C-alpha cells in the first residue's frame, strides 16, 4: 500500500521536474514547442542508448514514461533489443516498440478532427 503511494509521489515529482526543465529551456531560449519536443525525445533516446533512462523508469514509473523523453526511450530500447536478433531487428526494432503511441496519435486525432467543427481560437 505504502509502496503504491510512494510511487505516485515519485511519479509526480520526477514528471514535474522534467516539465520544469522544459519550462526553464523555454524561458531562457524562447524555443518553440516543436523543438522542445524533439530535444526531449532525443535526450531520452540518447540516455537509453547509454543504458541510463531505464533506471529512471524503475525509480519513477510514469514520471519517466509519460514525458516525451519516454518515447525516445522506447525507440532506443526497441532498437537495442532488436539488435540482439540481427540486423533486421536493429533497423525495425525502434519504430516497432514506438508503434502504439504513433498509431494512437494518428487514429484518435483523425477521429477527433472528423467529428469536431472548426472553431476560431480564443486567446
Amino acid at each position, binding site marked *: 500500500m505504502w509502496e503504491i503511494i510512494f*510511487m*505516485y509521489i515519485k*511519479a*509526480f*515529482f*520526477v*514528471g*514535474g*521536474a*522534467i*516539465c*520544469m526543465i*522544459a*519550462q*526553464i529551456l*523555454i*524561458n531562457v531560449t524562447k524555443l518553440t*514547442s*516543436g523543438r*522542445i*519536443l524533439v530535444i526531449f*525525445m*532525443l535526450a531520452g*533516446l*540518447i540516455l537509453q*542508448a547509454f543504458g541510463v533512462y531505464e533506471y529512471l523508469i524503475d525509480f519513477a*514509473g*510514469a*514520471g519517466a*514514461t*509519460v*514525458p*516525451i523523453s519516454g*518515447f525516445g526511450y522506447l*525507440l532506443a530500447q526497441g*532498437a*537495442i533489443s532488436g*539488435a*540482439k536478433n540481427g*540486423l533486421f531487428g*536493429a*533497423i525495425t*526494432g*525502434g519504430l516497432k*516498440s*514506438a508503434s*502504439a*503511441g*504513433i498509431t*494512437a*496519435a*494518428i487514429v*484518435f*486525432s483523425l477521429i*477527433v*478532427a472528423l*467529428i469536431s467543427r*472548426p472553431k476560431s*481560437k*480564443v486567446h
Partner: protein
Amino acid sequence: MTTKNNQNYNKEYIEYVKKIAPKTNEARSLFHAFLVGGFICLIGQFIRYLFLYTFGLFGDELAGATSMALIFIGCVLTGFGVYDNIGHFAGGGSIVPITGFANSVCSPAMEFKSEGFVYGLASKMFVVAGPIIVYGVSASVLTGLIYYFIGIFTA
C-alpha cells in the same frame, strides 16, 4: 523640490518594478509547469496501476496501453478546446507529457480540416509530430546499428 524628489522616487520605483516583474512571472511559470506536468504523470501512474491490476497487463503491453490511453485523453481534451487553455496556464507542463504530443498531432488536424482531407487534415497532422518521428526513427536505427556491430565484434 518635493515634486522633483517624488519624480525620482517614481522613476526608481518603476525601474524596480521592471526589474522584479519578469522574474516573478518566470518563477510562477516554472511552478505551473511543475504542477501540471507532475499531475499528468500522476494520472499516467494511476492508469498504469489500473491496467496492471484490473486487466493484468505487463511489460511492453502495459507501457503501450498506458500511453495510448493518455493520447486518447489528450486528443479528446484538444477536441473540446480544453487543452489549449491548460497550455496557456502550464506552458512546458502541457507540452512535454505524451498528451502534449497528442495535442500537437490533433490540433493542426482540426485547424486545417477546412483546407481538405488530404493536403489539409492529413498532411498538417505531422507539422510537429513529423520531425519527432523523422529524428526519432533515424536515431533509433543508428542506435540499433551501433549495438548490432558492437555485438558482432565482441562476440
